[in-house]
């Protein structure tokens, strides 16, 4: 099932090992991320004032976070006025219960879903199944992930790790399709036949939300296939679940985000489908509309001045596509529905920095800064990563690593200690080096010599040379 939740089952190192040793998956990842990366650079370079737009988008999101309560209450009022119903969910369990209750009330045996990353966050599918309600993903990639009992590995391209022939085999096995070729048109055709039947028969839909406008109560979803629009318009009942940070103050604010989101994510000038709806309208679209406002740790994150930047995220996935760590380790390594650099700062915070496995995520970065450069809302991801590492080390207390760094600190506090340590090092390194280099190191440093040599300490340090020159 595709409802992965946000609790990693393994540490990043252990989970990354699985992808790193899977050469096919690494090839798939490399191919897709580099293709999207190049396309995105072109799409962004077409906009002359991209940097100005980034600033506006960043400030708008920051303003929302600083006045979140005001805008959420306004949103509730606007949605209610337009005939919708608003529900507040403090955590994943409450949110699941709300959706299940609505489904059971309407006697729904099946629900169709679109744009469902937030529903994956709350692990909705499995929960509904337990109540006798089957949740059917309608986004093609999400459907692929669901049918293969896999987990999404990318926000934008959930099935990024699968190639076409794998998908053809999957559809033949699960949808009863008889595809001989793995041409995209054939694969899409098989999915279409299956999904059409669902669109016309299923009475309830569940969606996520890209944005919601406080002043009008309008909810907005952007997508590429049009399957979302079917979900949003055909069923009688529509339930949309959104993280509370997705609210925007005014209708005008949407303009800048509809420019930035597609260019940052799919490298398109505009999304093929931008759907917006406001409450319910007689004889048009769903008869009942429910909006579930999900907290699930977000208010806690909001209280942290540095860490709360993560809530500016508009889920474009630009940071994933430029991240060298994501490209090698893959989305599954992050153990959460939020992978990549943004996941590395969002997941542990949503879990209030209490989950030891999620707390390995802030270390899953070389701090190269490519994510910050790519982020359309200017989340300083490297800064937050370092900041969260501070929280993790504090929580862990004394470890072998903290002791090693403490002793290094002691050495670095006084230049004569540093000089002494270098002399000691030179004396002690002899038995461990060969041809002027270390090839095997013990303990914490063994990770280095796993693939790299290390030069030995030279006969003279810089400071010794300087002194010798009599300067």
């Amino acid at each position, binding site marked *: 099932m595709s409802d992965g939740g946000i609790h990693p089952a393994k540490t*990043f*190192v252990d989970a*990354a*090992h699985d992808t*790193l040793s899977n050469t096919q998956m690494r090839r798939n990842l490399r191919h897709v991320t580099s293709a999207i990366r190049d396309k995105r650079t072109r799409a962004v370079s077409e906009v002359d004032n991209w940097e100005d737009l980034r600033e506006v988008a960043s400030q708008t999101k920051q303003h929302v976070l600083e006045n979140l309560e005001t805008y959420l209450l306004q949103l509730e009022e606007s949605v209610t006025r337009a005939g919708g119903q608003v529900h507040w969910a403090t955590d994943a369990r409450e949110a699941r219960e709300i959706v299940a209750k609505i489904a059971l009330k309407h006697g729904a045996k099946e629900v169709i879903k679109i744009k469902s990353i937030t529903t994956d966050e709350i692990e909705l599918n499995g929960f509904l199944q337990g109540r006798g309600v089957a949740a059917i993903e309608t986004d093609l990639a999400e459907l692929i992930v669901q049918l293969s009992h896999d987990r999404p590995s990318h926000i934008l391209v959930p099935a990024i790790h699968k190639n076409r022939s794998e998908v053809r085999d999957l559809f033949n096995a699960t949808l009863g399709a008889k595809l001989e070729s793995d041409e995209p048109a054939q694969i899409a055709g098989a999915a279409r036949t299956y999904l059409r039947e669902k669109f016309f028969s299923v009475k309830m839909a569940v969606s996520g939300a890209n944005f919601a406008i406080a002043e009008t109560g309008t909810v907005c979803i952007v997508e590429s296939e049009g399957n979302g629009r079917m979900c949003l318009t055909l069923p009688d009942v529509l339930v949309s679940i959104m993280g509370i940070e997705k609210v925007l103050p005014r209708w005008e604010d949407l303009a800048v985000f509809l420019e930035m989101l597609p260019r940052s994510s799919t490298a398109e000038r505009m999304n093929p489908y931008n759907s917006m709806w406001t409450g319910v309208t007689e004889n048009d679209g769903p008869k009942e509309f429910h909006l579930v406002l999900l907290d699930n740790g977000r208010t806690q994150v909001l209280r942290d001045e540095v860490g709360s930047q993560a809530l500016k995220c508009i889920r474009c996935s630009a940071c994933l596509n430029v991240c*060298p*760590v994501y490209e*090698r*380790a893959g989305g599954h390594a992050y153990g959460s529905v939020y992978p990549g650099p943004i996941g590395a700062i969002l997941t542990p915070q949503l879990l209030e920095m209490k989950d030891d496995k999620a707390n390995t995520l*802030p*270390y*899953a*970065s*070389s*701090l*190269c*800064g*490519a994510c910050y*450069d790519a982020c359309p809302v200017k989340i300083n991801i490297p*800064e937050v990563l*370092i900041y*969260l*590492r*501070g*929280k*993790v*080390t*504090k929580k862990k207390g004394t470890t072998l*690593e*903290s002791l090693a*760094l*403490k002793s290094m*600190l002691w*050495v*670095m*506090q006084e*230049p004569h200690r*540093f000089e002494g340590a270098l002399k000691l*090092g030179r004396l002690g390194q002899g038995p461990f080096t060969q041809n002027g*280099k270390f*090839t095997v190191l013990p303990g*914490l*440093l063994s*990770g*280095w010599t*796993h*693939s*790299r*040599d*290390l*030069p030995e*300490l*030279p006969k*003279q*340090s*810089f*400071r010794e*040379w*300087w002194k010798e020159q009599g*300067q």
Partner: protein
Amino acid sequence: MKVDLFITCLNDALFAQTGRATVQLLRRLGQEVRFNASQTCCGQMHFNTGYQSDALVLIRKFVEDFKDSEVIVAPSGSCVAMIRDLYPRAAEWAGDHALHEATLKLAEKTFELSEFIVNVLKIEDVGAYYPHKVTYHPTCHAVRVLRVGEAPLKLLRNVKGLELLELPQKDQCCGFGGTFAVKNAETSTAMLSDKASSIMQTRAEICTAGDNSCLLHIGGGLSRMQSGTRTVHYAEILASVEKQVRP
């Protein structure tokens, strides 16, 4: 100009030749080079690994050591990025306003070697001679935090005898990332192997960069692969002249 050299702990201990080259180069360009022997480490490793209170001890020490400097120059993009970008942040997080003020002042007078030569001294040809095939790896912190841009390339292009070879996928991180290389060794190695194969594709004799930490990683990998390509800090290339004159 009185230039205070921040040699960085890694260069001091492992790459003294880069330090010597930096001194020679700056003197050749007419600068008065000073070395305050009280200096040790900028604290980047502690800060980036999550030991921020330990790092603050070294940050305060650095601020004290260099408080009277006119200009501080270091042959390391990441250490300069630490000083310019993260020192003020560290002081902010610690709620130390006086330190914050001091770090902002420090940031204004601290430069990475190539940006000091090109942007401050306005020199693009340092009169170097280096008859080798060289490829240049732009390091992440120099590119994305310091925005040194073309400065190192401008200098390298004017080196006589040097053939500069374009590095494919040059903007990709080499996978070092300080303690990342050890804590996530397997991912770091995957990044390194792509970087190494890009370097080998160029058929360069030497891979150069402005940061010996990245070069330690890349060079360590190239050495393990017995690639035959060496790593050399660009300060050493720029310091080389046809008739070597010792200072």
